[in-house]
């Protein structure tokens, strides 16, 4: 223990001339789930893209388990142990299910608690095993989400970022995704969870950061926020 999984401090990001993230700072504790919430356009996905290096950003500090990852390429950041389940799933549609998993596969760091293999993933998501030779583009939305999660797990990350995993999924599938998130938290993985589904996020998260138009509007424990409906209403305006 001791070191935090992810420390972000003074993150500023730009799209062309517009300044979309202003001095965003937060910390993900090891083995915990941080819910990153906010209205549409608050900058959540930009924040995720900046962490994985897909959006160029200025940061005072960006540390993964005490080691700076600021300015590294997306592939280097991935190799350092950040997994991504991106918004819109973005599985590789012209690859088969098994290819989606094997292109991402690599062993985790020495001494890492859980090591995901193809068999573990198939055990966790039996439907992927049934469809392993199928083109990923032909899967249903829920199956694609399972695949996106599995693909990230195959990189054996130390920290995993979920960007709106429940988006566009049937309620039953959302329940399944939630169960997966809980299981991953129990396995000791550190998680950042971006969600529009606030009820789901507050159920699973330990800590919460709320973004509003690119600024951090609130930081605190999920439990406290869960109990404070007025504050939720004020921050997120829908619940």
């Amino acid at each position, binding site marked *: 223990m001791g070191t935090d999984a992810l420390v972000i401090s003074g993150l500023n990001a730009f799209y062309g001339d517009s300044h979309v993230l202003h001095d965003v700072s937060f910390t993900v504790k090891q083995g915990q789930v941080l819910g990153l919430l906010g209205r549409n356009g608050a900058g959540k996905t930009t924040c995720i893209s900046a962490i*994985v*290096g*897909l959006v160029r950003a200025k940061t005072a500090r960006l540390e993964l388990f005490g080691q700076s990852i600021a300015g590294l*390429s*997306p*592939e280097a*950041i*991935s*190799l350092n142990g950040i997994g*991504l389940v*991106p918004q819109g799933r*973005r599985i*590789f*549609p*012209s*690859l088969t299910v098994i*290819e*989606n998993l*094997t*292109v*991402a596969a*690599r062993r985790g760091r020495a001494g890492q608690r859980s090591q995901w293999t193809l068999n573990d993933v198939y055990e966790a998501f039996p439907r992927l095993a049934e469809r392993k030779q199928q083109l990923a583009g032909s899967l249903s939305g829920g199956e694609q989400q399972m695949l996106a999660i599995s*693909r*990230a797990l195959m*990189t054996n990350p130390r920290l995993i970022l979920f960007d709106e995993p429940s988006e566009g999924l049937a309620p039953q599938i959302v329940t399944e995704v939630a169960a997966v998130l809980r299981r991953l938290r129990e396995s000791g993985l550190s998680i950042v969870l971006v969600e529009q589904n606030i009820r789901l996020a507050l159920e699973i998260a330990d800590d919460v950061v709320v973004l509003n138009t690119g600024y951090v509007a609130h930081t605190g424990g999920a439990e406290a926020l869960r109990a404070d409906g007025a504050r939720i209403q004020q921050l997120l305006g829908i619940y």
Partner: protein
Amino acid sequence: MNFWVIQGLNGLAFGSLLFILASGFSLIFGLMRIVNLSHGAYFMLGAYVGISAMAAGASFWTAILIGGVAIAVLGAVIERLILRRLTGQPLAQVLVTLGIAFIIADACVWIWTGDPRPVPMPRELAGAFRIHQLAFPIYRLFVIGVAFTLAAALWFLLERTRLGAMIRAGVDDLNMARAMGIRTSVLFPVVFCLGSALAGAGGVLAGPILSVYPGLDTDMLPLALVVVILGGVGSLLGAFIGSLIIGFIYSYGQALFPDLAYMILFLPMVLVLTLRPTGLFGRQAI
């Protein structure tokens, strides 16, 4: 009847040459998002290098190898020293490849003069294959065989190996591939060198059919472009089918409507771009 068969075989042979050129062009375009406008120049330079190798005593087969390796090395240098510095600036990359194409073309005139050079055919493949009243050059049948073998080999590389799956993942969604830890610093040189080698070796192989002359580069590049637009960017199957279609159109068009040859070639491209911008087998719009 004979006319249709012979022109059909000619179209198949020309389409085969196009496939050797366009498969690499398409992969580079699909993965690196670079329209490599020096690809035609690589083809021509490879042919000239092959000629010089043969003049120095190398066999035709060794000359193909030398042409391929020389252009692969050139491609590696250009990728590492120039294109990589311009990552994320597609327009600058395309313009650079155009500049390189001009430089190569000028250097070729300087070194090999402006006179067209015939390329001798390997003796074992000279002559014609005869059946009934039909005669067809054995060498062209050989070129067709090479292209189909190459298609099978590339298919195996892309569809049956992990490296191939990584390349296809990059063509599907490059940013996501990178975020999964797939290194572009490995994939890009591999694909660029492979494409360059195919262009260089293809130039030597095409020599006995097309001969080598200043302007061969600008004759071939638009055809490769049409093939890729027709077939779909980054798709091997697309490059294969597109090459054969263009080969047939070229062959029959030149014979039947010589005045309209270019219109017949580029009309399908215009139609595809307007009606189906992803090409027949592609996923990305141009």
